[in-house]
């Protein structure tokens, strides 16, 4: 009983320390002008969809939804890469970490606290952009609806996973290289269907095909998070009609948590061994 309450107290204290780091990371992000500009661009893209909608034949709502989701996704990816790769390198370049590590917190709490701060930032940003999108839809007489919420949650999960991947790279390489590596993985991860088709088609039976299939299994499958317009079991899913279920969103969340958790674990192990010279 005593041990368990001590354990709970310890966990609570540990979360408190991580929350201190997370809060600071959130403050850093929201006070960053680059981030504000990127969010404004995303909103501008949504506003532009109003103009494009006028050019269509009574498809204003469809265009706003498609462009809006694309805007959240594209600018979200840029923001996730920007935040993820700068997370540790800034601390090391500016030597701010030197004053924090000797404080009463574990190194893994520092790293996980930083990620928690990014998670809160990204949830806030996606929520903000979704609210703006819902406002534009309302202006055109459309409804945001639960399908859009599912699509937005999937985009958020993709961004959280991408941030974990970027953070892993930034724990051992420079920001530019980390952005290149993580960005390349995102591009490959979004196109796994084509690569799978190539591995099981032209390369079938060859050593190259086997290696490609193995590598694709290891790489993060970002395709599963941006599904509007994709073909699922011979059925095209879309936010305008039949979309993926909550169960699918749950399984995508489990995948993001497992893959992202692995990335964070490796990042923690690398960070744990590091000398801050």
């Amino acid at each position, binding site marked *: 009983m005593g041990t368990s309450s001590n354990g709970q107290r310890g966990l609570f204290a540990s979360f408190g*320390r991580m929350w201190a780091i997370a809060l600071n990371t959130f403050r850093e992000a929201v006070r960053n002008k680059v981030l504000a500009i990127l969010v404004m661009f995303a909103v501008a893209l949504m506003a532009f969809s109003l103009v494009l909608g006028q050019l269509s034949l009574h498809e204003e709502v469809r265009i706003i939804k498609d462009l809006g989701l694309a805007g959240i996704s594209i600018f979200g990816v840029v923001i996730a890469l920007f935040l993820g790769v700068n997370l540790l390198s800034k601390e090391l370049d500016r030597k701010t970490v030197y004053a924090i590590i000797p404080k009463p917190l574990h190194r893994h709490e520092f790293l996980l606290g930083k990620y928690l701060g990014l998670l809160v930032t990204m949830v806030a940003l996606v929520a903000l952009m979704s609210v703006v999108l819902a406002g534009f839809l309302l202006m055109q007489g459309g409804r945001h609806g639960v399908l859009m919420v599912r699509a937005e949650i999937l985009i958020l999960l993709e961004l959280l996973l991408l941030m974990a991947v970027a953070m892993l790279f930034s724990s051992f390489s420079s920001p530019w290289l980390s952005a290149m590596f993580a960005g390349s993985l995102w591009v490959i991860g979004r196109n796994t269907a084509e690569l799978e088709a190539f591995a099981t088609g032209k390369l079938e039976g060859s050593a190259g095909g086997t290696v490609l299939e193995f590598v694709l299994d290891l790489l993060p499958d970002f395709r599963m998070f941006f599904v509007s317009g994709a073909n699922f079991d011979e059925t095209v899913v879309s936010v305008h009609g039949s979309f993926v279920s909550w169960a699918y969103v749950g399984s995508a969340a489990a995948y993001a948590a497992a893959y992202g958790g692995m990335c964070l674990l490796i990042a923690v192990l690398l960070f744990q061994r590091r000398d801050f010279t």
Partner: protein
Amino acid sequence: MTAPVLEVDGLRKEFVRGFLRKRTVAVDGVSFHVERGEVFGFLGPNGAGKTTTMKMLMGLIYPSGGTATILGAAVGDIEAKRRIGYLPENPYFYDYLSATEYLHMIGRIYGLDRHERRKRATRLLERLGLAMAEGRAMRSYSKGMLQRVGLAQALIGDPELVVLDEPMSGLDPIGRREVRELILELRGQGKTVFFSTHILADANLLCDRVGIIVKGKLRDVGPLGELLSPKVLRIEVLWQGSAELQAALREQFAEAEPGSEAEPGSEPGSERESPHSSSSEGQVFVAQAQAQLDRFVAAVIAGGGEISSVTPQRETLEQLFVRDSGTRPEEQRS
């Protein structure tokens, strides 16, 4: 007898750098201890290994060998860290935060509640003269102000052991005096202070004991009184007299006595400076031995001159430092 607050035994750090895996020993088997309530100065020229040693003690760098215990626990123990305050060398902080926000963040890490954080932050910012800038983003702070924030963040957890890496670095004379006063205040509160510096005057004024590290090796550890030689090295005479008497004595006592002590740090066989000089208060003669002093004083009085003061000069911390490091301070690389 209480256990030492800090105990270091054979601490060693070897860096492996570059493609060719070149090895550099930064700290080589350093051993010392710091007792409760004392001010311990860690002295050494730039690049001697002071900061590397401190970083090992603070868990920023992993040692290649040796052990260290702080407040009875191994380095990195979270409960021990709670009782330590650390100021890094040339501190950098999150420049988008204000000093108050930063101290609240650090207070949160220490597990302090909001009321306690506010109380301590306000008191420290006032004590360190930052109250007028507490709400401003730290990007607009001067180096001196950042150093004060560094001291505030080191003290917000009310630590038993305060570790300060070059706390006077980059400060103007007033700032340096304030930091000296703060260190003495901490000692008055019963806290242990372990600080590094290459400014010997500060160490001379503050330290109960010092450790001198040179090229990664600890050369001397102990109370200043024990480390400094009690032997009189030379005697300085301040005197006044007529121009004729000055000329006569300059001629009569033109050179140091044969067999007198060489000044520490001077090259053997180098040209000896004249023992005579002038100051705003009168003429100065430096006698190297008692017999020479007696004869000089007798000559001044016999010539109708006046003796203002006779000051024996013992070894200073600077001379000890030069003796240990084997170089003059100005020759040390910066």
